[in-house]
Structures are given as structure tokens and as C-alpha cells.
């Protein structure tokens, strides 16, 4: 508004249509819509704060000058609707109905009209003239939303003023519109929402029954609508006022329309939907349409699964292309160099000191530490997928897939966490209400390939399968997921009886990644891995070393070898010798420990890295069997502990161990013998 126009406001002396001697304006709106900012802008220091009578809700009232005459303004409590759900809602509607302000200003957010307009749908049905202050238009524009003010104004039938309250933009225009309304220069033709058509007769019936009994200032039809909505305060009031037979008749209508609450709200949402469709334009290109276009593939029940498979394949491709060469370099030059240096340095030290440092610590923990580049890439790629909003889609398509297999919908949440680590995944099963469904989810969670397992797979696959490592790793992840579905389906039929229920999830918009967040994530997780290597894996490596040198310093006659030979017959059926079988067994404490054990057992005495020693010792068929056993073997000790904690039962914990043992043994044996038959 121009300066001259503003001056014209002060030239006119009175507001002919104002009901109050001092015009009264009420500011209404939902919380966080900028109502208080507007109130402060208008009143400055001319405001006082107290409490609403008999309530602990804050009342803010002030004055400002319009046309040289003072105007009272009351900042109503922030509310989402005008039903008696909270003291704030009762205060807001009672004030509007009893005080009958000359203008009610509804402050709404242009960036979130869907949420804001429901209250407008209620306010517009009340007798006081309504003006809509369309706040935060800058935020809406920033998000690519354009609200056509003229169309919205026409659709609502009341004035709409665009503004940015935080920058005092649009305030003068709002005051001009208020002045016009007060002076009768703006004719308002509010378009009020209607109740759903199948309840209109009920509304008329109640209106007719209560007509003549409704105390002022309540409008009869509004009270009838609120009775249908089940408003507790008005129901109580009308029950006390109406003669018994009339109340019985009203009560009967309400009983016959027990879904009336839905019908009233439905009518309002239809109304809000019409306003949005008419006035809000979303950008043809940009963030929203990119999300929609990507989701045609990424969230499709079939293509989404294929897309997920390709994404996992790409993760492994990046890992092997970038991570494996660095891992090889670290193993050969850093760990190999450290071993050579320690070998020379400790040449004259006692045997056990030399062996502990070279074979136990550097051979064990050193081998595991070389995983760091591979893990860092996993963390970075999964962090990236999560940050851009893809992981929610991955969970969504997995969930649809699980539904096809008869698994419970809610299970996807904890299973989703299982990609990182199985421990939070098991604890996450608490979100599932049904005891049986929760149990089923816990039992299948260890089939989710955690990053520790994937790191072991990345190490072995790169060593044995070179250019085909991506394909092999990808295949083992898919094998794990397939086993999860098969075992889940089987258990579902036995213990869960195939119950299902609807499930709705909000998909976040795709957006550009925040590299700082991803960097921080990689740093924190890598640090946690190094800490784990320096504590748990170091401790276990030393134990394995002790077992490998006792009683006489010879590995082949050591306690470890005896244990290995004892379990070897089972391992042989999977193509694993006692060393691989022992490595598999020690992965029970931590999955990465499988490599640490192989590092201790094979040492580095041959002057080459562990990967090279392994490829020259074992066949490809044995490597494949070892990989499938690693992916499907019993969960680590931490996961087992939380399984016991969450099920509260040793029976289910042991059953889970047995289940995983049987599955890993059966699948690994099958993989080994098929590979032998195919001469892989």
C-alpha cells in the first residue's frame, strides 16, 4: 500500500459497520503461523498479557490506531479446530461467538495451506466477518509453491491478503482490507463447507429439533453441526436445556448417525481440497516432480525391487572399484610393512612376545583394520542413499515384497535398521504390537546382511573373484534377503497365521545430499569401528593366538587345532577345513573376527598378504561356501544377547541359533557341492 493510501486511512473518521464502539479484531490461527508476530507488529508496546478468565491460558490484548481511532485486538490462543478438544479451542470459539469481534483475522501459512485451511473452514461458518492473512508467502515461493491470491479469495468468498509477517510485508494491505470491511466497503460472500450429503438430512432434523431452544449467541445450525461432531461441551449444554422428549429425539438422530463426526470432517476436507486445487500451483519441474518421477521406478512394487537390487549392486561396484585397491595397499604395504618391522625389531625377543605381536595382534587386528576403506565406502554410500531420501523407498518396496510373501508389514522398520547392525534391529521390533509378529521379526532379523558381514564378504570376494567380486557380493546379499523371505514365510505359516493390517508411511522428498552430514556419519562410524577393532577384536585375537600357540607353540597341535579338528567333519560337508571352520565359529563374537582369526592362523610369515595366502590355500568352491556360511551363520554375541533380552526366553534364543545353524549349513553345503559340480 502506498503512503498516500495509508494517509487516507487516517482521514476517514469512523467505521460504520463496527458493532463495538471501539472496533474489536480477533487474531485466530494455528500455532506457529505467525499470529503473535503480526500481533506484536500491530500493537507494539500497546499490549498487555494476562490470563483468560478461569483458565491458565495466556490472553494477549492490545490496541492500535486505524483511521485515527483506536482498535482493540485480541490474540486468540493457537488452535487447530473449534471443537471442544482443548481449553484453547473452547476459549477461541467462545470469544468469537460471545464477543462477536468486528473482524476475525485468520492467520494461515501459504507454505502449508492444507493444514491451515481446516480452521478457516470452521471460522468461515461463524457470524463474524473473516479476513485471511496469507502469511509466509516467501517460504511457499522458496518451496516452489504459488498461491493465486485472487482465485483463493474468490473461492473462499472472503478477502485474502498475502504477507510476510517477519518482514512486516503486507501489514498495511491487511489494515486497508480490515478498514474496508469495518466500513462496509467490502462485501463478503463466504462459501462455507457443507456436511457430507448423506448426513444433510440429519443436520436439518437436529436443527429443527433444537430450534428455539439454543441460547444466544450460538447460531442454531452451528450448534446442530457441533452436536453431530460429538462436541462434549455443547452436547452437555443442549442436554440440560432441551426438554427431555426433544433431547431423546436428538439423541436418537445422533445414534442413527454414529459416523457423523467423520461426515462433518469429511465435508471440511472436501472444501479444503477444493480450495487447494483451485488456488495452489505446484511447479511443473523441480523438487516435487523429480520425486514423483523417480518414485514411478523407485517405489513401484516390481521395478522398485529391481531398482533396489541395482542400487545394492552399485554399492558393491563402488566398494570394489574404490575400496578394494586401497584395502590391498593397506594390507600389503602398511600391515605387511608393520609386520616386517616388528619381525626385525622383536627378533631377539622371547618367542611368545614376537608371535603375539606379529601373528596375534598385527595378523589379527591388522587384517581387520584393513577393512576400514571398504567400510567407510559402505557407510558413505548408505549415508548418501539415506540422506537423499532413498532408504525410505527401499524399506517401502521391501515391505510390499514381504507382504507378498505373507510377512507382517510392520517388520520392515526393524529390518531396515538391520542393514546397519542387527542389534538395533532386534530392539526395534518393539514397535510391533502383536507378540507373535514381534517374535517372527526377531527370528528373521539376523538374516539381514549387516555391514560387518558385508565387509567380510567384500574382503573374501575381492581376493577370490577379482573382477567378478561385485557380482558375487551382490548375489550373497540377495541370497540373504531371499532366505529371510523364505524362512519368514515358513515361520509365518507356522506361528503367525498370516495376519495383516494396513500400514501407511510418509515418503520424504528426494533432495540434494548434505555432504557435511554424510562426512560426519562416515567419521563417527569409522571411529566406532576402530574402537571395536582396538577392544573386542584385539581381545579376541589375543585369545585366538593363545589357543593357537598352546601348549607347545605349534599351530597344528594347538588347542585351536584340536577344537578345529573336532568340528571339522561338519565343516568338510561345506567344503571348509578346520581353519575356515574355526574362523566361522569365532565370528560368533564379532563378524569381523572371522578375518582376524584367519590372520592369526595364517600369520604373515610368507611375506604376502592374507588375501594372497587364502587364494593359494583354498578353492573357489570353498570360498563360496565360506561366504554363504558367513552371511547366514548364527548372529554375533551382541545380537544374541538382545534377542534373549527382547524375547525374554532362552527357548527362542536357542531356537534362533539352531535355525540359523541349520540354514547356514544347508545353504553352504548346497553352494559348495553345486560349485564343485560346476567346477567353479
Amino acid at each position, binding site marked *: 500500500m502506498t503512503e498516500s493510501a495509508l494517509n487516507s486511512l487516517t482521514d476517514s473518521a469512523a467505521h460504520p459497520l463496527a458493532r463495538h464502539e471501539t472496533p474489536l479484531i480477533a487474531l485466530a490461527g494455528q500455532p506457529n503461523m505467525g499470529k503473535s508476530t503480526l500481533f506484536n507488529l500491530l500493537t507494539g508496546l500497546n499490549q498487555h498479557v494476562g490470563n483468560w478468565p478461569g483458565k491458565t491460558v495466556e490472553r494477549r490484548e492490545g490496541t492500535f490506531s486505524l483511521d485515527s481511532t483506536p482498535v482493540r485486538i485480541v490474540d486468540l490462543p493457537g488452535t487447530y479446530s473449534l471443537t471442544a478438544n482443548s481449553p484453547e479451542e473452547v476459549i477461541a470459539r467462545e470469544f468469537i461467538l460471545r464477543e462477536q469481534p468486528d473482524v476475525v483475522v485468520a492467520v494461515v501459512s501459504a507454505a502449508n495451506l492444507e493444514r491451515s485451511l481446516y480452521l478457516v473452514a470452521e471460522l468461515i461458518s461463524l457470524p463474524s466477518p473473516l479476513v485471511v492473512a496469507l502469511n509466509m508467502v516467501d517460504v511457499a515461493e522458496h518451496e516452489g509453491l504459488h498461491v493465486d491470491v485472487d482465485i483463493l479469495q474468490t473461492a473462499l468468498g472472503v478477502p485474502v491478503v498475502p504477507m510476510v509477517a517477519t518482514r512486516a510485508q503486507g501489514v498495511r494491505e491487511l489494515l486497508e482490507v480490515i478498514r474496508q470491511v469495518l466500513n462496509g466497503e467490502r462485501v463478503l460472500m463466504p462459501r462455507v463447507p457443507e456436511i457430507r450429503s448423506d448426513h444433510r438430512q440429519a443436520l436439518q432434523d437436529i436443527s429443527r429439533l433444537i430450534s428455539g431452544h439454543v441460547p444466544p449467541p450460538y447460531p442454531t445450525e452451528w450448534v446442530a453441526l457441533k452436536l453431530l461432531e460429538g462436541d462434549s461441551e455443547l452436547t452437555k449444554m443442549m442436554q440440560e436445556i432441551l426438554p427431555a422428549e426433544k433431547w431423546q429425539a436428538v439423541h436418537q438422530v445422533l445414534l442413527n448417525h454414529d459416523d457423523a463426526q467423520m461426515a462433518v*470432517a469429511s465435508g471440511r476436507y472436501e472444501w479444503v481440497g477444493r480450495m487447494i486445487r483451485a488456488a495452489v500451483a*505446484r511447479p511443473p519441474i523441480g523438487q516435487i516432480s523429480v520425486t514423483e518421477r523417480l518414485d514411478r521406478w523407485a517405489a513401484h512394487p516390481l521395478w522398485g525391487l529391481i531398482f533396489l537390487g541395482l542400487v545394492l549392486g552399485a554399492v558393491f561396484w563402488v566398494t570394489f572399484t574404490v575400496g578394494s585397491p586401497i584395502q590391498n595397499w593397506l594390507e600389503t604395504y602398511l600391515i605387511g610393512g608393520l609386520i616386517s618391522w616388528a619381525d626385525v625389531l622383536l627378533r631377539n625377543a622371547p618367542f611368545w612376545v614376537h608371535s603375539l605381536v606379529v601373528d596375534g595382534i598385527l595378523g589379527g587386528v591388522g587384517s581387520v583394520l584393513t577393512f576400514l576403506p571398504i567400510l567407510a565406502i559402505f557407510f558413505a554410500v548408505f549415508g548418501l542413499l539415506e540422506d537423499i531420501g532413498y*532408504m525410505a523407498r527401499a524399506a517401502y518396496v521391501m515391505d510390499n515384497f514381504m*507382504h507378498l510373501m505373507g510377512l507382517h508389514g510392520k517388520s520392515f522398520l526393524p529390518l531396515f535398521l538391520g542393514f546397519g547392525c542387527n542389534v538395533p534391529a532386534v530392539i526395534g521390533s518393539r514397535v510391533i504390537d502383536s507378540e507373535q509378529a514381534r517374535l517372527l521379526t526377531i527370528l528373521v532379523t539376523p538374516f539381514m546382511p549387516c555391514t560387518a558381514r558385508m565387509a567380510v564378504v567384500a574382503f573374501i570376494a575381492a581376493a577370490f573373484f577379482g573382477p567378478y567380486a561385485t557380482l558375487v557380493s551382490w548375489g550373497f546379499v540377495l541370497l540373504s534377503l531371499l532366505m529371510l523371505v523364505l524362512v519368514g514365510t515358513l515361520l509365518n505359516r507356522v506361528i503367525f497365521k498370516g495376519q495383516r493390517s*494396513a500400514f501407511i508411511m*510418509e515418503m520424504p522428498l528426494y533432495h540434494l545430499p548434505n555432504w557435511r552430514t554424510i562426512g560426519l556419519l562416515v567419521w563417527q562410524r569409522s*571411529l566406532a569401528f576402530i574402537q571395536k577393532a582396538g577392544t573386542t577384536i584385539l581381545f579376541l585375537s589375543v585369545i585366538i593366538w593363545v589357543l593357537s600357540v598352546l601348549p607347545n607353540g605349534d599351530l597344528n597341535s594347538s588347542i585351536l587345532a584340536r577344537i578345529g579338528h573336532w568340528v571339522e567333519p561338519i565343516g568338510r560337508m561345506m567344503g571348509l577345513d578346520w581353519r575356515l571352520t574355526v574362523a566361522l565359529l569365532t565370528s560368533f563374537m564379532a563378524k569381523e573376527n572371522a578375518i582376524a582369526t584367519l590372520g592369526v592362523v595364517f600369520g604373515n610369515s610368507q611375506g604376502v598378504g592374507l588375501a594372497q595366502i587364502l587364494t593359494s590355500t583354498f578353492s573357489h568352491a570353498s570360498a563360496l561356501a565360506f561366504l554363504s556360511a558367513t552371511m547366514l551363520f548364527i548372529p554375533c554375541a551382541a545380537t544374541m544377547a538382545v534377542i534373549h533380552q527382547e524375547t525374554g526366553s532362552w527357548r527362542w534364543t536357542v531356537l534362533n541359533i539352531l535355525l540359523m545353524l541349520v540354514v547356514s549349513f544347508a545353504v553352504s553345503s548346497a553352494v559348495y557341492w553345486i560349485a564343485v559340480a560346476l567346477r567353479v
Partner: protein
Amino acid sequence: MLQKLLQALQSNETLSTEQIAKQLSTTPQMVLVMLEHLEALGYIHQVESCTEACSQCPLSNVCHTGKNKPVKVWQVNSHYRPQIPLE
């Protein structure tokens, strides 16, 4: 519209807000607002996605999932399901 949303929830499938918005010819934001309304009316409840798990998890300080970006998920309350009227 609220009624149509409830009918969509009777499919017993897993649905995204975008999918429902398409079915109802509205925006996902509108679906979110209606879901919150249905939640307030007691027809559905929001599933506490990851927060509880994270508070108990030893890896919570290094985990990125759940804690920073919880996925909002709702489920139909079983005791209300028979009352959802069909058109």
C-alpha cells in the same frame, strides 16, 4: 475425503502418502493432515518407528537412521476396523 482415505486404508496393503494422494486426487500434505486427524479421532495410530530402539541401542551415537530422520508410519487401530463404513 476423510471417508475415502479410511476406505483406502482397508486395503490391508502398505501405502505411501503419495499413493493415497494420487488415489484421492489431492496432495501428500493433505493426506498427512487427514492422517493426523484420523489419529486424533482414534482410527489410526502412529507407529513409533525407531526412537525407542535407538534409545536402547549401543550404536545410537553413531547411527544415522531413525534418530535424525524418523520415518512417519501409521497403522489402523484394529478395534476401529469393523466400524469403518463402506460407501
